[in-house]
């Protein structure tokens, strides 16, 4: 019995939150990796672009709520995904047209494009803050919990309850759907294959008649969809605050590089690696050990490896270690 309780503690406080957070990071990391693999630069505007899409979701959610439109037990934000994604893709394409295209045609070195993306980051932040302001906003409505701790305890008679927030379930389900569609698209369709070919060897791809403009367009569209979904899911689960989204860029980069940059599947797993590492290393295991160990051995301290203040530092340290020992990432990405 104690063993089941211990497992429940872990599920509740580490595994389910890590899966949720990991899914959100994974979507962002695939976004980074796609841009890196096909457009060949590190996009420092990642976090703010995700924030841009989410901003529309927040505003539209408020609008729909004022009209009385909702999804019942599901959050209203889910209806806004197509609209927000559309705005996001429009924004990304216009940014590409006015900013990035010039450097791509000139074949500028990646560093220059990265610097340009810093400029885009500033402008995007300004637009977001001017439109919606820097404040913290929650836009979650509908049913909050799928399974409450008290209900679970009643059902099973265990000491520990299992809580599943609806946002957690929604995040994991939507991520799985979005990511499977994306991998199907990349691996099974002709356009997807041409994108991979373009990513592997640009010259050869051009030689075999692949239209680079089309590849770039499709890349931005897929990136836009993933970034918006990732942003909205994060916002639903936590809350929407522009500064936090900017900061999220850092673990997202870490996930993309850990997974092997340029490799979408690696980025997907990288998101979970980072999330699990962050949460497992900063969780206080006291409760877990009180269940699993005999009474005599019960721990007095919190049994916490690192204080939660160092959550971000964990992912960065992992990144540094990976860069040192396996610079192409855990799952072979582009060589550096």
């Amino acid at each position, binding site marked *: 019995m104690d063993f089941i309780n211990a497992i429940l503690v872990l599920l509740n406080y580490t595994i389910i939150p890590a899966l949720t957070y990991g899914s959100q990071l994974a979507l962002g990391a695939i976004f980074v990796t796609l841009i890196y693999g096909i457009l060949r630069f*590190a996009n420092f505007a990642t976090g703010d672009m995700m924030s841009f899409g989410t901003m529309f979701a927040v505003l539209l959610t408020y609008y729909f709520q004022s009209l009385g439109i909702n999804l019942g037990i599901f959050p209203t934000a889910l209806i806004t995904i197509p609209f927000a994604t559309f705005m996001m893709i429009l924004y990304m394409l216009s940014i590409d047209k006015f900013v990035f295209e010039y450097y791509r045609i000139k074949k500028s070195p990646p560093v220059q494009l990265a610097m340009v993306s810093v*400029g885009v980051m*500033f*402008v995007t932040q300004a*637009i977001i803050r*001017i439109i919606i302001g820097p404040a913290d906003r929650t836009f979650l409505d509908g049913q909050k919990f799928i399974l409450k701790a008290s209900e679970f305890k009643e059902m099973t008679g265990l000491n520990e309850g299992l809580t599943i927030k609806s946002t957690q379930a929604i995040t994991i389900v939507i991520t799985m759907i979005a990511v499977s569609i994306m991998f199907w698209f990349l691996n099974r369709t002709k356009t997807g294959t041409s994108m991979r070919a373009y990513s592997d060897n640009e010259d050869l791809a051009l030689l075999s008649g692949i239209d680079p403009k089309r590849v770039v367009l499709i890349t931005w569209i897929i990136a836009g969809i993933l970034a918006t979904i990732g942003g909205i899911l994060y916002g639903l689960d936590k809350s929407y605050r522009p500064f936090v989204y900017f900061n999220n860029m850092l673990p997202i980069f870490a996930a993309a590089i850990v997974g092997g940059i340029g490799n979408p599947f690696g980025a997907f797993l990288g998101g979970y690696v980072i999330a699990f590492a962050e949460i497992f290393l900063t969780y206080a295991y006291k409760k877990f050990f009180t269940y699993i160990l005999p009474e005599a051995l019960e721990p007095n301290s919190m049994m916490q490896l690192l204080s939660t203040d160092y959550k971000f530092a964990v992912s*960065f340290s992992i990144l540094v270690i990976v860069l040192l020992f396996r610079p192409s990432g855990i799952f072979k990405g582009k060589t550096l």
Partner: protein
Amino acid sequence: MKQYANVITAYLIMFTLIILVGIFQSWSLALTILNYCLISAVMTIGANIQWGYAGLINFGIMGYTALGGLAVVLVSVAPVGEAWKVGGLNMMICLGVIIGMVFSIRLSLKKINKSKKRNYLIAAIIIIGILLLRLISAPAIESIEAVEPAKTGFLGGLGLPVLFSWIAGAFLAGGLAFVVGKVALGLRADYLAIATLLIAEIVVSIIKHEDWLARGVKNVIGLKRPAPYEINLQQSPWFIDLVEKFHSGKLALINSVSEKQEVLNQLVIDASSVYVKLCFTGLFLTVVIILLIVTQKALYSPWGRMMRAIRDNEEAAGAMGKNVVKQHLLIFILGSAIVGIAGAMMVTNDGLFTPGSYRPMRYTFVIWVMVIVGGTGNNFGAILGGFVVWFLWVEAAPIALFFINLFTAHLPETNEIRVHLINSAPYFRFLVIGTALLVIMRFRPQGILPEKIIKN
């Protein structure tokens, strides 16, 4: 002289702008802007010798700035005797453990051949070391932080004059740069950018959360100053006499004695703040000029030519027998040390150390915009960039407010769009800076004052 014409024009325009701020807003504000411009200039000199001379992209400026700030606390604050008594010994042992760890890792790297065994050994040293550190430091940290937590709760510093901290800041930042450089300099440019960005973030989070070191997010206030305090100036007779002499014409026009005294008091208060800021300006200007002379000399020395050669073609420079790795490390340390000085200068100027305020936006990306806008590889350009971008950063909000009022003048006062825009005026600075960067990158990628290669 002719070849410097554009430099001189650019600087003249810049100083005219600052003087205009003095005339239209206030002299105190103008001097604040000027001081921050000078601090930014030091940072851009540091970033410029990394990026402009050597082509190393360092997005970790924030970390070095924060370390510079930390140096001010560690050097100038008086030691907290009580805290040393309760936890000093343990912390010293911890320091010893860390040094021991570093040496044993170095030793094993040197003595044992590359193998799996060596990796395990190093991992074991690190894990045992960390466990030891936690074991020793945990009770000490708790007791140190319990010493008057509202006022101290940290070990304090050495109690030395604050100017020493500028040098200490350079050493701290240089030391970190040595470690980071050893680890990360082999990476390709954009990976180096990401790695340095993340390492800086780690450094700041350590400073933020290790309260025993510098009070963390509880901030250290009332730091020492290399300049007199306003309150003392206002009471010293020589200063009042000076102000009286300076404004004698204006004061002579006032007849009533009490009114005269009142006006004089106000003038003394204003003048004291200007005087303090002028002191800082003098100090900062000295630093900027010394750094400018040194970096200019270096740029046109054989060493500078070698750095440019390495930047433009690493393989060729390597083939000519230049040690690329070593030179990269050297310039990385030098640049970061200069940024460390700037960090210390900034905290000295503010008189308080607020680890919570170190954010990559303000301390890394804005500095980079300065370097790119000003002119990479040209020290005058980098300094100018520091001035221009800082000026924009500060003045963007008032200017935006002016334009918002101009364009929405026909709307009623309570119009929602107008109110919203006026409330979001501060955020126009991001827009201005971002647009400036994009425009410069597109139409003048070498910056306002491009790099000049003197061939003799």
